[in-house]
């Protein structure tokens, strides 16, 4: 039974959260990072398309007042792909933007990530370097913002 189907029928929180973590890394990875992670897989997985990469729209939602009921905010381009490995695992990807190459690579990695023998390679060549890059970028963003933190003082105006 395909992995996705199995999860759907018998939700296993740990399996799902492991897949989500890898999907999150893939969503932030560049094409070059995804390519080098695939190149590092040994043996290189054979993947066939269940659904060739295609670009569409996802309607994004906000919350009224920032925390209330949802409203439709505007759409984003999203590209998705689904593949099946020769060993039977299915891999999915949904990524912001229109890169079909990235979507296909991410779907292959998502499927490969379900096979224990690939886990170490994926962590070493994708998860760790991308997480480190993201952390350093986020830190830079936050530290640059922090340097613009302002302390305002109120002054008494008028004669008395």
């Amino acid at each position, binding site marked *: 039974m395909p992995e996705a189907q199995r999860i759907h029928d018998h939700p296993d929180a740990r399996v799902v959260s492991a897949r989500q973590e890898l999907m999150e890394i893939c969503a932030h990875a560049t094409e070059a990072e995804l390519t080098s992670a695939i190149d590092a897989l040994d043996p290189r997985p054979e993947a066939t398309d269940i659904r060739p990469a295609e670009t569409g729209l996802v309607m994004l939602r906000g919350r009224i007042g920032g925390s*209330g009921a949802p*409203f439709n905010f505007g759409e*984003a*381009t999203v590209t998705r792909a689904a593949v099946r490995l020769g060993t039977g695992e299915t891999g999915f990807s949904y990524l912001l933007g229109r890169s079909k190459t990235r979507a296909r690579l991410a779907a292959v990695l998502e499927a490969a990530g379900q096979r224990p023998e690939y886990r170490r390679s994926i962590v070493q060549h994708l998860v760790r370097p991308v997480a480190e890059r993201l952390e350093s970028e986020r830190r830079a963003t936050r*530290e640059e913002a922090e340097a613009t933190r302002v302390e*305002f003082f109120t002054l008494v105006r008028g004669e008395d």
Partner: protein
Amino acid sequence: MYVAVKGGESAIAAAHTLLAKERRGDPAVPELTTEQIREQLTLAVDRVMSEGSLYDRDLAALAIKQARGDLIEAIFLVRAYRSTLPRFGYAEPIETSAMTIRRRISATFKDLPGGQVLGPTFDYTHRLLDDSLNGGAAGTPSSPARKPVSEDAKVPHVADLLGHQGLIEPNPETESAAPVGDLTRDPLSFPAERDLRLQSLARGDEGLLLALGYSTQRGYGRTHPFAGEIRLGEVEVHLAPEELGFEVPLGTITVTECEMVNQFKGSAESPPQFTRGYGLAFGHCERKTMSMALVDRALRARELGEEIVAPAQDEEFVLSHADNVQATGFVEHLKLPHYVDFQAELQLVRQMRREWEDAQRKEAAE
């Protein structure tokens, strides 16, 4: 009435070739790349994404280039493109309280948890033209200062601080499984609820919203606003595709959010407390979100039992005219051939004129 016309193919083709030449400008000046637009005209890109209602920086940059910098034309191009794509689904609502903050200010509290962070702002600049940007020789700007931050310092919404004391109305809660209005699926009808109004305002024309927001400040539907909070930064987007049965992270988007805090007298049922207006837009669109929050609050007149006396409180007026693609379509269609229609009018005026002249002559004779 517009009546279809035929002919003019070669003139139209020549006009489009001429347009391409004008778009390119002086060939001695290097051609602008879409990457340059995406990276250096970021606020134009943000406006096109917001009002085009499509988050895609590269497409917005391309549209701006193709439209020769005419942002409404660029928004039109983006809207036309989006209509060619299938819809994969609806994302989970973004959580702006979990934003990676680049800018966050409040005009209501001087000292507040998370602090006042100016970020990349035009505020406090002197608005003097900077000659050093001339000629493309400005080079790389000096790297911005950095200051260490404490890990995961929470930055709560300002309105929540008031909310804990019951001094501001709570946000409307989700009724689980309540449908969320979508004006890209069903045409807008009135009265429109707040979810639809916010969707319409989020894609609405910045100029219209600015003018309407301003009109409320000048007394046409006054709401006593304070900028409770404006925040800019990145949020994660998640989608739960049916085929997977769990949420998938799609990546991050940049948004600007504005929470206005407005006065309200209270009534027999509700104690005196502040009310809210809300603005949210793609990218860095501060003027847009502030205007949106003002207009959102003004449009709550019906819900809050306020007398509807001003344009900004009239939802049919505001929402029917907020979309600049619709507006420009109807205004600009006037330049298309109306020959038949006009001939009919011309005939009518000539006939009325003859009758008027006959009457004049008769009167003079009597």
